[in-house]
């Protein structure tokens, strides 16, 4: 506990934000030499951080048909040309999502969503009123493909009771649906591996295939965590803490990767 308190002091001193902890935790989920399908925003920041630290040979794919880009300007979305810069291959869905993801050679797929539930199912399609009326949102795009096919799926969302409900309002991208195995569901990929939020890292490595706590971010209390999670969460004792970004990681994030704090608010 002494060390955690020391870390908290350091965190406070260096003003480490929840986004910085999230993105560093996400970076730690990729290994050198792997191939990742990333979206814009935190996943891309995480992969760039990984590349500049422990995973220089990480390959990044964008679903629209971009491989291993090195942008110099921040993009507003996946369709923003800023993200295409200095890529080594421009192709299309059929290459990235087809001949890579569907072929089974994508190690890690990052997705976001409106909701993620206890089985790691993700909703990016719609929300429902109290009376059941549906309000459509963006839909799947490549999300369902990534969730169905990547060897490890990492979901990045902000923590909150409505963001992490017991069951998603619409099952866009399957995790371990009803706790069933991926094989049983007919799916190829390994399914949800981590849910990374601004409060904690959740995992699914248990017989019930439900989200369980992997680590809690420094500065968060167990009570806060449970209050903000829409499903029961088993809390190990002692509670593992998410490692803080190292000084070098912080420097890279702040000075080189997202100095304008576009994504690391």
């Amino acid at each position, binding site marked *: 506990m002494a060390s955690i308190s020391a870390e908290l002091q350091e965190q406070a001193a260096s003003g480490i934000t929840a986004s910085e902890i999230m993105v560093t935790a996400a970076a730690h989920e990729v290994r050198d030499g792997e191939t990742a399908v990333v979206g814009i925003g935190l996943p891309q920041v995480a992969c760039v951080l990984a590349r500049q630290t422990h995973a220089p040979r990480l390959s990044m794919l964008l679903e629209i048909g971009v491989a291993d880009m090195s942008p110099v300007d921040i993009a507003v979305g996946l*369709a923003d*040309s800023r993200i*295409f810069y200095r890529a080594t291959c421009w192709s299309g869905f059929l290459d990235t999502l087809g001949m890579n993801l569907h072929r089974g050679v994508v190690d890690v797929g990052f997705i976001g969503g409106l909701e993620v539930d206890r089985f790691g199912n993700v909703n990016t399609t719609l929300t429902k009123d109290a009376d059941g009326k549906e*309000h*459509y949102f963006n839909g*799947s*795009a490549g999300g369902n493909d990534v969730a*169905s096919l990547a060897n490890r799926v990492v979901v990045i969302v902000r923590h909150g009771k409505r963001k992490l409900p017991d069951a998603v309002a619409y099952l866009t991208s399957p995790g371990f649906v009803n706790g069933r195995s991926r094989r049983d569901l007919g799916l190829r990929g390994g399914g949800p591996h981590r849910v990374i939020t601004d409060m904690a890292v959740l995992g699914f490595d248990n017989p019930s295939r439900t989200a369980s706590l992997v680590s809690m971010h420094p500065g968060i209390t167990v009570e806060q965590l449970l209050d903000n999670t829409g499903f029961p969460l088993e809390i190990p004792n002692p509670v593992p803490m998410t490692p803080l970004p190292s000084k070098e990681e912080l420097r890279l994030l702040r000075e080189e990767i997202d100095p304008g704090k576009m994504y690391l608010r």
Partner: protein
Amino acid sequence: MPDKVKSVAEVVRSIPDGSHIALGGFAIARNAIVFAHEVIRQQKKTLTLSQGVMGMETDLLVGAGLVSKIIVGGGSLDRFGPVRCINRARDNGAIVHIDSSSLSLAFGYLAGALGISFIPIKSLLASEMMERLETAAPDYLRRGKCPFTGEDFVFLRGITPDVSVVHVPIADSNGNCWIHGPRWENEEQAKAGKRLIVVTEELVPTEYIQREPERTVIPGHRVEAVIHQPFGAHPTSVFGCYDYDAEHLKLYAECHKTPERMNQYLQDYVFGPRDHWEYLEKVGGLRRMNEIKAEAIFGY
């Protein structure tokens, strides 16, 4: 030799009501805005639209009330917000919507382009899209097994749109097209169409194409018509030509929040201008186009 280069008005006149049009934009990139505007001016009705990831062109057409059905993988205006006209139409049951995923659309177009009437895919299984479509659209997909391995698949029906429309930076008058930057599902989408219409920023001599024929993504002999319209995708971007126009996209993202303001937008920017040149004047003309013009090094 008859020229394929035609005006957008002439091309759109040849498209009957009820057609299935495959659109080639992605969110706020390479949307065939000049084409969408003209379809709205000519009030082509009960259209089916298909697209991997919908953007402004599709939102405009749905917002104009011309669309009965969409077959799509997803859609948004990136950070400028959701495709609100489309979402409103889905919410209200005003359109039939076959919602799947980016790869499902790419596979469907691939099958269509190859002339195979179905293709197996591992996406969609165990999702709510599958659950809904299995009953609502059994002619679009169904469950099946590999005859060799017994593995579970979704069998997607090949998609063969009546008309495919693709917005490209470079084409010659025969329709040979180059695309700079990523191509999402354009190659399959283009070749899946029974008719293929190209909107190009630049019209180049065939000799230019012959210098680097490996760049030709769509061979000219498949193309029925070439519409030459600089800044034809405004306010969406064309990599290598110009950036998206953030000011206008913000304006649009405000307008499409309500049907009333959307109608006003259509009056002001679609019905008002006689053609795309007048539209371009309305949104800032030469000065604005110069501001969003791409830098040579970056392509945006």
